[in-house]
């Protein structure tokens, strides 16, 4: 944490938003930079304390194990940037995996099932967005209803967990990109990385992306400025629905199963990741990169707990809480000081 208050502005940021100020990071970047710095500190502590924590694969596993969360969190980032929230994502994952598994078991070809399940989440997102926009229902409630609906449907379809034995699915699930002996990432990671990249580009370089920020900054003003507020808002929930079902697909690759209880509480993890990454819950401020870091923080905490290896259930929770606390408070203090 030595020098976090004045880290150099990353080259990339300068080209996007920098301009003339070189001596000080843009205040908007501080939360992200602080998170990054603290993440490195935390990782170093892990490496120092646990044997083989420093293995490349341990680090890569965080991505392998959290690819679906990352995708969902990216969708959530858009929603939160507009000042909304999407509680349905975990349930949409459950619905996606259940439908996919059911249809695949029934012998449908993967080429049909895949787009179909992606469509399900997208349509649900579209529906929630439309209700939120047209009927002025609070996002929290609209998406909570969406959560009940999606999980309810999943439960209705099948209350048991369903194995996926489809060849295509298992092949993808077991696809590995190996770099070195025992060092690999899964296809999920690649997909998640692509999603992150696209999302970052969309947010920084497209009108849609900027409208998202504008709405989060002040939706009334955005409307008066002649921005397509309604369209953007609906699009954002649609996008989140899509990301959730894509997350569901990744989840089904990851677990090769469909189950109505998959992804329970995942919405909270996604929201936490986004907020830890420095996105303001009130909207208008934050970056996808921050979300990636937020997911890494959660993953790293999980990894540390596993490496510790002698925590029983309640100590696990308490330690997760303590680590979260330490991280967030430090992040807050660093950010405050730098500002």
């Amino acid at each position, binding site marked *: 944490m030595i020098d976090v208050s004045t880290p150099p502005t990353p080259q990339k940021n300068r080209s996007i938003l920098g301009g003339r100020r070189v001596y000080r990071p843009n205040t908007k970047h501080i939360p992200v930079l602080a998170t990054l710095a603290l993440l490195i500190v935390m990782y170093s502590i892990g490496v120092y304390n*646990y*044997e*083989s924590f420093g*293995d490349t*694969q*341990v680090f890569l*596993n965080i991505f*392998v*194990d959290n690819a*679906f*969360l990352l995708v969902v969190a990216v969708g959530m980032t858009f929603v939160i940037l507009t000042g909304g929230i999407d509680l349905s994502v975990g349930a949409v994952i459950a619905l996606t995996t259940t439908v996919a*598994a059911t249809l695949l078991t029934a012998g449908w070809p993967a080429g049909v099932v895949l787009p179909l399940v992606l469509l399900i989440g997208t349509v649900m997102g579209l529906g929630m967005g439309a209700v939120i926009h047209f009927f002025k229902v609070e996002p929290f409630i609209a998406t909570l209803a969406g959560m009940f609906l999606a999980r309810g449907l999943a*439960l209705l379809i099948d*209350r*048991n*967990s*369903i*194995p*996926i*034995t489809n060849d295509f699915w*298992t092949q993808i*699930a*077991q696809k590995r990109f190996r770099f070195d002996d025992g060092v690999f990432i899964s296809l999920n990671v690649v997909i998640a990385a692509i999603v992150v990249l696209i999302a970052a580009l969309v947010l920084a370089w497209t009108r849609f992306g900027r409208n998202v920020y504008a709405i989060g900054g002040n939706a009334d003003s955005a409307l008066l400025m002649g921005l397509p507020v309604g369209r953007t808002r609906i699009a954002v929930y649609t996008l989140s629905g899509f990301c959730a079902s894509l997350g569901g697909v990744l*989840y*089904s690759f*990851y*677990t*090769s*199963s*469909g*189950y*109505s*209880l*998959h992804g*329970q*509480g995942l919405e909270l993890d996604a929201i936490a990741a986004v907020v830890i990454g420095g996105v303001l819950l009130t909207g208008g401020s934050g970056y996808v990169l921050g979300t990636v870091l937020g997911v890494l923080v959660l993953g790293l905490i*999980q*990894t540390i*707990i*596993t*490496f*510790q*290896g*002698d*925590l*029983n*259930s*309640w*100590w*696990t*929770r308490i330690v997760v809480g303590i680590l979260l606390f330490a991280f967030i408070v430090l992040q807050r203090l660093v950010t405050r000081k730098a500002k």
Partner: protein
Amino acid sequence: GGDSDAGSGSGSSGGGDDKITLGFSQVGAESGWRTANTKSIQESAASSGIDLKFSDAQGKQENQIKAIRNFITQRVDVIAFSPVVESGWGTVLKEAKDANIPVILTDRAIDDPDTTLYKTFIGSDFVEEGKKAGEWLVKEYEGKSDTVNIVELQGSPGAAPANDRKSGFADVIKSEPKFKVVASQTGQFTRTDGKAVMETFLKSQPDIDVLYAHNDDMGLGAIEAIEAAGKKPGTDIKIITVDAVKDGMTALADGKINFIVECSPLLGPQLMDLVKKAKAGETIPQRVLTEETTFTPEQAKEALPSRKY
């Protein structure tokens, strides 16, 4: 009390010395039963000199997969886990297999057709438990022809024990048309919900003869509701539950419950034996059943003093 110590592992990873390292991923701590299960494993690991790496999945499959993957990277000697769900273990277990780490399933089975992915499965058979409950009921009402109105308190919707205990029970009683399940709702495996749902059953169902609860806790909650309604549990309404935790056994001994199907959490000693054998490369049977029985009030009175959990 809150004195239970944190595991027994030393914190350093396996290898080096000849101590066996066991990576164990538990479902969570969602019930007293589960905690007893954890305790049994931790205690028997300590007493048989096995270095235990314990990880709690907080009820999430993804956490469990992560944990297993971490065990693999840490190169533990044996991996054991109680799967949160039945499906979806192929990928990660293949990784374990590739890394030559034997895997033991505890408590719950998985449905992967490739049985070479794990060495053995030790645990109870939930369908069988449901059947035992049903068989007792059939015997209890043998020779009577009046309709028997049954209400059922299910576990959490979708959870394997809930699904299997329901279907096992249903399979047995469907042979006789006099058994009628008039209402079946989830009590989420908890006392409060068991009580709440039973309260409503008592008002919406005019005539209840039998209560079948998927675990003791829901049954215990239901007993309170029955008493509050001015009825006598065990007499006015016959009660069957599953688990046989201490509180349940006490109620059974008091005659408030009529029959309990045991589902033992004390897998520890059996598991440690298997771990040693797996490490030594001995052949072990694919399926090891835990020794489980059923209890009537009389048996409960006998067993209670020596009950551990």
